[in-house]
């Protein structure tokens, strides 16, 4: 019975977790928005390069830090304290879960080099673009991949 309950919990968590598909830049983009909309930071870590992930977390944390001095101190230690990073991530997770879901429509993919692609899309009808790089057979969101390589 205990095993059955455990299996059910595992199944339910896997169904609730964001579906991560990193096979193409566009599927990675969709996975990114699913993860952002659900506040699924574990998925985000798979979807983004580590530097890009840290960038997102710190920027999403900024609005909280501007209103909360204690949290501000935590954010200052994001890169030097594992506990502070964890606290910041928890706060960002909560914030993302409360955020309105954004609707995205993919418009085009543009190759920027052998292992990088820009995807143009709209987010709630506003023009957006994100960059992706290819590593180990997956496409990850990579803010540093915006340079065209000929």
């Amino acid at each position: 019975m205990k095993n059955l309950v455990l299996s059910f919990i595992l199944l339910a968590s896997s169904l609730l977790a964001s579906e991560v598909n990193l096979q193409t830049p566009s599927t990675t983009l969709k996975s990114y928005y699913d993860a952002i909309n659900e506040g699924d930071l574990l998925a985000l870590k798979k979807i983004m390069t580590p530097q890009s992930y840290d960038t997102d977390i710190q920027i999403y944390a900024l609005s909280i830090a501007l209103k909360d001095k204690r949290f501000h101190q935590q954010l200052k230690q994001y890169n030097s304290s594992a506990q502070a990073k964890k606290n910041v991530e928890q706060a960002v997770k909560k914030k993302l879960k409360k955020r309105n879901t954004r609707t995205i429509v993919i418009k085009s993919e543009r190759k920027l080099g052998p292992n990088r692609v820009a995807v143009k899309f709209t987010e709630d009808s506003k023009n957006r673009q994100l960059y992706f790089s290819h590593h180990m057979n997956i496409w990850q969101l990579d803010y540093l991949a915006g340079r065209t390589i000929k």
Partner: protein
Amino acid sequence: MMKKLAIAGLTTALLTTALMAQGKTVTTTTTLTGEQLDTLVFIYQEEKVARDTYITLGNMYSNQTVFANIQLSEQEHIDKAEGLCDTYGADTSAINEDNVGEFEIPVLQELYDTLIAQGSQSELSALMVGEYVEITDIDDLEHAEIGMPSDVVQVYENLKAGSLNHLAAFRSAIDAYNN
């Protein structure tokens, strides 16, 4: 002064610090690694956040000349960053960041929106946003020049000197506002 301010002293780098190369030596070579070129291109995009923030806050508080004065200088920062990209052959043709307050990269839009929301609360908040942006800029540039060739370091040092002037201007305006 820092402790008095709700937003100042937040030294967590917004973008660039997280994206920095790890080298510690200033080199004098005339070629950059792919990672350094990528960083240059990102800094170019990031500079626009500061300029657009000042343009928007300057429009909100038109009596505060500090925003108008500094936004011109921020345009020069963007031009210098773009010039470096050109010098080193870092192709920025995929980037279109012409419209004020509009960013193609969603997280830069989030950053801009956060700063404007804070600055919209009051004139003093807007000045503190300016102070915050400059503190962050200086911190970012100090990290960005690590491992870069001397001409890049020179440009970054010039940018940093500009940011220090801007920081002094914002602090002076904050003091004047408080007095």
